[in-house]
């Protein structure tokens, strides 16, 4: 095994097969095929799905999920979960909206404070998990409930109601919206700017994972934290940084949603954490850690968004929505598995 890289660089025939092999080994290959299948399926059975405005619609649904799925994938590759990530988006949205509307802060300043809250939540999650060795599932579930309670309780105390409204009158709203929530006209369709953020986050995460030393650390701590530590990987710091990345990015996504809707409900975001995890898993992340990809998670979110809006375009009875969604996701995952298995056979 150790001599393989040397052989590859010296022998061009091995190099060619190496690239094919590497392509087939990529965790996101299955998700890409799944995404294509879902796209073709809905583009065939509905008129609106493949129209520019239809595409903008499902991209809009997929983008916030995609941004979160990518960072959640990093955390999962690092061997941990974050169940508080969904509610964290609402917490950040409420922080921004409350500070801007009730206390007259500039939206950008409010956003900065929300980022600090995100960093702090991630720090607490990470430190508790690393110090106690408790499963992150339990620790972040606790944080999930804490944030859910704070969201409702604090919002009611400060505003006397359960919605924070009127963010569009706050100072700095227009410029913040232009960065985080506006739409750009492409081919006659209004594409949400979050779609470009999603692409950017995916590219950055892919670069970090595959081309940098922290990227190696993430794979190492997810594979085996003890083994990683013994070869000098700062395992605890890597995990804490991952938790902080997830909740800080959740703060960004929450701000995006708040700016877009100009209001935030105190009960928003609950249940989203599972959508993030589902998207990451469809994209090839292992629940056990050590394996996965950012592009795959982004594709997983794309499948989720396409299925969600595609069912609406298809006009299927909404009482059965969750059944359709569940079956489509299962199918996409099975297709993903099938493609990966085939790829493994072909590698030989």
């Amino acid at each position, binding site marked *: 095994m150790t001599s393989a890289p040397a052989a590859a660089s010296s022998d061009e025939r091995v190099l060619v097969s190496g690239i094919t092999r590497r392509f087939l080994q990529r965790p996101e290959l299955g998700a890409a095929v799944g995404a294509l299948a879902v796209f073709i399926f809905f583009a065939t*059975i509905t*008129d*609106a799905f493949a*129209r520019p*405005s*239809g595409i*903008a*619609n499902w991209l*809009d*649904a997929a983008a*916030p999920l995609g941004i979160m799925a990518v960072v959640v994938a990093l955390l999962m590759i690092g061997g941990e979960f974050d169940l508080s990530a969904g509610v964290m988006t609402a917490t950040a949205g409420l922080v921004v909206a409350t500070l801007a509307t009730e206390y007259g802060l500039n939206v950008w300043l409010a956003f900065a404070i929300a980022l600090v809250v995100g960093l702090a939540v991630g720090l607490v999650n990470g430190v508790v998990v690393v110090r106690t060795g408790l499963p992150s599932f339990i620790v972040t579930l606790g944080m999930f409930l804490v944030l859910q309670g704070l969201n*409702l309780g604090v919002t009611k105390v400060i505003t006397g*109601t*359960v*919605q924070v*409204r*009127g*963010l*569009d009158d706050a100072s700095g709203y227009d410029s913040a919206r232009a960065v985080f929530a506006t739409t750009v006209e492409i081919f006659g369709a*209004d594409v949400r700017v979050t779609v470009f953020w999603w692409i950017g986050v995916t590219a950055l995460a892919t670069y970090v994972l595959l081309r940098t030393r922290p990227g190696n650390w993430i794979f190492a701590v997810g594979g085996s934290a003890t083994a990683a530590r013994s070869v000098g990987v700062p395992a605890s710091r890597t995990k804490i940084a991952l938790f902080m990345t997830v909740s800080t990015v959740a703060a960004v996504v929450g701000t995006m*949603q708040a700016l*877009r*809707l*100009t*209001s935030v*409900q*105190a*009960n*928003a975001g609950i249940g989203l954490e599972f959508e993030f995890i589902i998207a990451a898993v469809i994209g090839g992340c292992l629940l056990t850690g050590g394996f996965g990809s950012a592009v795959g998670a982004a594709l997983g979110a794309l499948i989720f968004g396409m299925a969600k*809006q595609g069912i*609406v*375009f*298809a*006009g*299927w*009875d*909404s*009482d*059965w*929505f*969750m*059944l*359709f969604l569940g*079956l*489509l996701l*299962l*199918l996409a995952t*099975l297709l993903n598995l*099938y493609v990966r298995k085939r790829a493994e056979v072909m590698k030989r």
Partner: protein
Amino acid sequence: MVTTRFTRKRALFALLALPLALAACTGDDDGDNGGGNDEGGGGGGGESDYTFAVVTHASAGDAFWDVVQNGADAAAEDLGVEVTYQGSGEPDEQAQLIDAAVSDEVDGIVVSLANPDAMREPLAGAEEAGIPIITINSGEDESASLGAITHVGQTETIAGQGAGEQLAEAGVTNLICVIHEPGNIGLEQRCEGATQGLGGAVENLQVDINDVAGAQNTIQSSLQADPSIDGVLALNPAIGVAAVDAVAGAGSEAQIATFDLSGDVVSAIEDGSILFAVDQQQYLQGYIPIVLLKLYLDNNNTLGGGQPVLTGPGFVTQENAATVAELAEAGTR
């Protein structure tokens, strides 16, 4: 090995075919409706191939909104138009459902405004596309500013006041008002109204409509914690029924009133365990907007003259419960 691979492959194909088959089924249904309309819907004059999208803030399986959907479906059948019904309690998802309806180039949109600000942008898109909008249920104050031609619903504060007054008449002095959707402004307004109408102590209690059993526990606990509570106002029929069990479980003497009807609520009113229900006749909130949209498109008519078209409040008490019971069982009240 070969055989297992074949069966596996076959299983995969079967799975792949399943949603297709399901889709085909629903597709056939649509086709049947369309066919029926072409033959039977000629009486209304003009073309009847309209498609209207109803987008609400309710998740599927909600007893109240099921009746709204039944109303919209019945109107679709009566008028020979097509109606789609979608809903999501997450504001961003509801907004995307409106966007989807606009992309789909529907002829009219009916939308509930639990969170009016979040609907501003997608509804502006609908207006820009020339799609008429009717708002239903809550959100009457914002309806016109969002470009709706009419609002069909119930003024929440007034309905709450009415409930408070009736409870005061029944001797209630210390009331809990059970809020089942933490983000819904209309529910807060009902409790405010009830506070004004009762003229006594009112405490708001937060529960989750997606966990009715948990809601029952919460209500029971607060009744046990404060035995002086002599009234429970539920804002949803399922919660109303849960409150009956909670009051029994706590051994409390509290009187119960609820907003909105279901078959269970009506029978509870008949046997006296629920005092009354505030009825906003939500069937009309499904039915009337479809009629209004068709009239608007065919004849450029609007109703209400800028004022909301009120569907409530009416009160269902022991006296008129029997009449309403049958209708509630049929899913139209």
